[in-house]
């Protein structure tokens, strides 16, 4: 990365941890074999996979046998939601999710709607949180599956998965949780949480890109999306990428030892960032002011044009409230669901930081943001009338 850049986009991806990289290099050199092969080399590769499962199981406090390896959270979400909804069609055609879910969940539900499923789309409160009564009231006798993300990728809002899961258990509704922004970043105990399916991806917690996992609780059945081999109980066939899996496992092991420390550091950085920005006139926080994931702060400022703000912030690397589509410049549907106006959503900037973020980078980010807002305000003519 260019030394000029200030990277505050950890919610998009995180740097590869050095210990993880080293583990992957070792595996690439010495255990590159096919773990499905029935010979000594294959068994060596299989042992690498089993070690990674053990490491991930320790991070999430569940059996290592409960994971399916996937290409990442998008695939995990697809497999969990589509696989479960189809498997449980006899139970009903009604599904529940939130409007603020990641596209990798939203678009799966939209696809299911096109095939005859009925979806209830829940809005959160203005701080991004879903009141448990709203969730409870959305469930019907024919509801078979709900999917709620644990940490929102745009706002950092944390959902009460324990309460949501308890309601699901009472009503015999399967619960899938998109944990892409949570696993390896906050303490997650899947043995204690009433969760049936849990999606995660390695690159959000300092592991490699291209590898994720789906936790499938004991007794839960899903249908496969792909066919063509006997790997992973035929639920997700294909030769396993041993080095990537080893990397995910090592990232999980590293996270197991430093989640609490990370959270403490991130809380201090978020506090520093908030106190440096809060007196900027017109600034609003998109998401919870307290109690959210401390690695994300999303702020909006109505009278500033978002695209110009992003350019004026260079060399700061942050995310905007616009969809990932420079042609549409659509305001974020997540922020719109929180009740923000198009203009508020369009001006939103998401700062997300992580294990390698330094306090002086936050100081620089504050200065850049304040200067950018001032520049664009000076440049703006008064609106007519």
């Amino acid at each position, binding site marked *: 990365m260019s030394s000029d850049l200030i990277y505050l986009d950890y919610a998009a991806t995180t740097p590869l941890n050095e210990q993880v990289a080293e583990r992957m290099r070792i595996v690439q050199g010495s255990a590159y074999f096919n773990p499905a092969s029935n010979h000594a080399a294959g068994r060596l590769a299989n042992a690498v996979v089993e070690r990674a499962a053990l490491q991930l199981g320790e991070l999430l406090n569940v059996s290592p046998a409960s994971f399916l390896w996937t290409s990442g959270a998008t695939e995990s979400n697809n497999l969990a939601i589509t696989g479960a909804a189809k498997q449980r069609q006899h139970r009903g055609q009604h599904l529940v999710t939130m409007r603020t879910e990641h596209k990798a969940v939203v678009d799966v539900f939209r696809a299911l709607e096109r095939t005859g499923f009925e979806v209830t789309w829940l809005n959160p409160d203005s701080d991004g949180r879903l009141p448990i009564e709203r969730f409870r009231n959305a469930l019907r006798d024919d509801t078979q599956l709900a999917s709620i993300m644990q940490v929102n990728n745009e706002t950092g809002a944390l959902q009460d998965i324990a309460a949501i899961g308890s309601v699901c258990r009472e009503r015999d509704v399967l619960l899938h949780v998109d944990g892409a922004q949570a696993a390896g970043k906050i303490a997650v105990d899947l043995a204690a949480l009433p969760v049936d399916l849990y999606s995660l991806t390695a690159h959000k917690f300092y592991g490699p890109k291209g590898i994720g996992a789906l936790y499938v609780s004991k007794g839960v059945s899903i249908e496969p999306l792909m066919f063509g081999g006997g790997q992973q109980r035929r639920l997700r066939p294909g030769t396993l990428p041993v080095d990537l899996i080893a990397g995910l496992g090592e990232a999980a092991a590293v996270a197991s030892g430093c989640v609490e420390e990370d959270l403490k550091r991130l809380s201090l950085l978020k506090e520093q960032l908030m106190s440096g920005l809060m007196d900027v006139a017109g600034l609003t926080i998109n998401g919870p002011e307290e109690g959210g994931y401390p690695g994300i702060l999303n702020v909006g400022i109505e009278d500033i*044009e978002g695209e*110009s703000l992003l*350019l004026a912030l260079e060399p700061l690397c942050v995310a905007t409230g616009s969809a990932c589509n420079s*042609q549409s*410049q659509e305001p974020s549907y997540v922020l719109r669901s929180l009740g923000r106006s198009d203009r508020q959503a369009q001006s939103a900037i998401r700062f997300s930081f992580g294990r390698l973020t330094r306090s002086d980078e936050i100081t620089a980010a504050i200065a850049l943001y304040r200067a950018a807002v001032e520049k664009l305000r*000076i*440049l*703006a*003519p008064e609106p007519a009338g």
Partner: protein
Amino acid sequence: MSADPYNSAVRDCFWGTLHSGEVAGGISAYFEDQGMRIRLSAGVADGTIAELRFLAWGCPHVIAATETFCRQFEGRPVAELGQFKTDQIMRNLAVPVEKTGRILVLEDTVRSLRAAISDRLAT
């Protein structure tokens, strides 16, 4: 990797807004559309645009296009304003076609400025 949406000309004009502000006592014109707002103000002497300043609220291409216009027309005869079209600026700044409407706000503002100058000179 996502392509850089801004070429060097956009970056130069966005960061180097040499003509931002207003001409004190100058002739001004304002136009807003497509969520964009542009104000141009000009100081005119002997049929020439002696000074040209702008304020703009919009995306980087709109700001860069307005700065480019000011750079090009400051010191030029007022009459040349009538020939202004955004085509050349759009090419120089490699403005995406979907932003054409936004850049045309500049053309409308220039037209308003020209009319305002004509009105002032007639009185």
